């Protein structure tokens, strides 16, 4: 287990390294070079020259890369000239809110997706299975902004059950001050993932239901409920953990849309506004943080998988 984890961590570090190289290339692909792009059109030649000197832009690219990574490691993601704040400060303020949104959506979709999938597998080819399949196909194909708009239309305007705007608290955990405002964003962000997890769980559970060990358990007189809980669910959960890890980028991307629809003050909204105002340091900073969060997420998912299903460690070791 230890060796497996260390190997996965090393892979994660390698991936993060490549991500930083890619992002660094992106920085240098900015129109007019990084200095001009970051300072904006109104900056004069002296300011551009000063910025270039301060950021070592005259030195060879590999040296610049190392210096830049050095800054990153010290927690310096650059300065947002549009908002006159350090990018790190902006992200630290917003990241918890986005994490609350994505974690709640992930938990909700796992609970719903797994239960729906199990239900479908048990009632295979019945009415419930059919209806759920059609719904999940629709949920899978609906863009987040469409579900968002429909949600506002139905739940906030027609039925007036929940507010259409997300909570606007400014502190890191401010969104928790008004939990009702969280309902709609979490639901909307969770729809796609719920659809995906339920489809995955359904096929995974069906696959397990025809296995010999289920037949043996039945022959021994184990009740259906116990077979489902103790055997089928347990075996089908491992791959779901991996799926949840793979879903991190999807959820973060969904958060950009969800946050812009509901004006939710998280990192996605920060990123969107940065993109609209061409605030490159913030854009790039968010991409880096999200990529690292994704790597950590998939790492965690693999750890959970290994705990749920110890066989995976041996398989990984042998291959």
């Amino acid at each position, binding site marked *: 287990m230890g060796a497996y984890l260390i190997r996965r961590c090393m892979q994660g570090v390698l991936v993060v390294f490549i991500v930083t190289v890619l992002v660094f290339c992106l920085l240098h692909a*900015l129109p007019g070079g990084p200095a001009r792009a970051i300072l904006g059109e109104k900056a004069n030649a002296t300011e551009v020259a000063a910025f270039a000197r301060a950021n070592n832009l005259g030195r060879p690219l590999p040296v610049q890369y190392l210096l830049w990574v050095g800054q990153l490691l010290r927690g310096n993601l650059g300065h947002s000239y549009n908002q006159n704040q350090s990018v790190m400060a902006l992200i630290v303020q917003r990241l918890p809110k986005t994490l609350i949104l994505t974690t709640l959506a992930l938990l909700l979709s796992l609970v719903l997706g797994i239960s729906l999938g199990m239900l479908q597998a048990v009632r295979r080819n019945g009415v419930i299975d059919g209806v759920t399949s059609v719904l999940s196909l629709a949920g899978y194909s609906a863009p987040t902004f469409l579900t968002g708009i429909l949600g506002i*239309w139905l739940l906030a305007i027609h039925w007036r059950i929940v507010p259409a705007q997300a909570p606007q608290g400014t502190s890191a955990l401010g969104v928790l001050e008004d939990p009702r405002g969280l309902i709609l964003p979490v639901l909307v962000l969770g729809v796609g993932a719920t659809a995906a997890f339920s489809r995955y769980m359904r096929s995974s559970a069906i696959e397990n239901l025809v296995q010999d060990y289920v037949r043996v358990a039945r022959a021994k007189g184990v009740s259906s409920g116990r077979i489902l809980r103790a055997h089928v669910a347990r075996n089908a959960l491992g791959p779901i953990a991996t799926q949840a890890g793979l879903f991190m980028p999807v959820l973060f991307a969904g958060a*950009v849309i969800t946050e812009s629809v509901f004006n939710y003050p998280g990192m996605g909204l920060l990123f969107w506004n940065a*993109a609209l105002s061409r605030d490159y340091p913030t854009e790039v900073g968010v991409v880096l943080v999200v990529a690292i969060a994704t790597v950590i997420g998939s790492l965690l998912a693999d750890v959970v998988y290994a705990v749920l299903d110890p066989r995976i460690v041996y398989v990984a070791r042998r291959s």
Partner: protein
Amino acid sequence: MPPIAKVAAEGHVPVTREVESEASPYGAAIGKSPAGLIVRFAENKLGLVGVALFVGVVLFAFVGPLLYHTDQIHTNFDQVDLPPGAAGHLLGTDQSGYDVLGRLMAGGQTSLIVSVAAAFLAAVGGSLVGAAAGFSASVVDSVLMRLVDAFMSIPQLFVVIVVATIVVPSRASLMIIIASMSWFTTARLVRGEALRIRELEYVEAARSVGSGRPRIVIRHVLPNAVGVIVVSTTFQVADAILILASLDFLGLGIPSPSASWGGMLSTGLQYIYDGYWWLIFPAGGIIMVAVMAVNFIGDGLRDAVETRLRER
């Protein structure tokens, strides 16, 4: 909503999509006759529904404007926000006086052209990288695959947004941006195929008569991986439609007066409290129909590829 192709790409995990009791790994298609594939596909009802819907959307976008003439360039502030049916506008008009039905057609052209072209570009690039990785020394292979990992861990939409703020959005640039963030799924799948195919006897035979590596890749590996490539490309089209619509929704796509489905929805959101439903539901509906159609086709194709495999 989620990038389907991306989630399906992880080699060690079976696919997210519907897999009946026999889940064979996505990447294991063998076969020489595309005709057999088409016959198998034709047996799949949902797949055929998908084809019908997709053809419908294509006809709507490209033939529709020939039958239903509208001006999608000049604003007309005399006829703003008209409800459906008023003054000859079947689906009403928007806040600039554009005919909504005509605008859906115009937006459809951009959406379909960009998505299909981006998926095609990604398929070509991804196949070449994947085949190269599968056939190269292990060092090159690991470097390429870690690159793929890195690309997969950066959420596609974020990079597409950053790049869309760097270049001027146009059909061509969006096509390239989306393709450049979509190739790695296909690359990973084709690599898996290449790893398998390169151990087969006929490849050894080809090698023994002196075929070079590029020739083996182009003549033997790619044609045999075509099932996998086609399936993953189909799902990429669905992803591309969604990404493009998201960009347009966020106001980072091709600017007005160019029409786009996502852009129409984002305008509709501004008028949601006014009850102008025709600014929201038609655009939302057609995006869903297009994406579902492509997903149905993809599901059908995947089943066809896998069935052929099972029968061997």
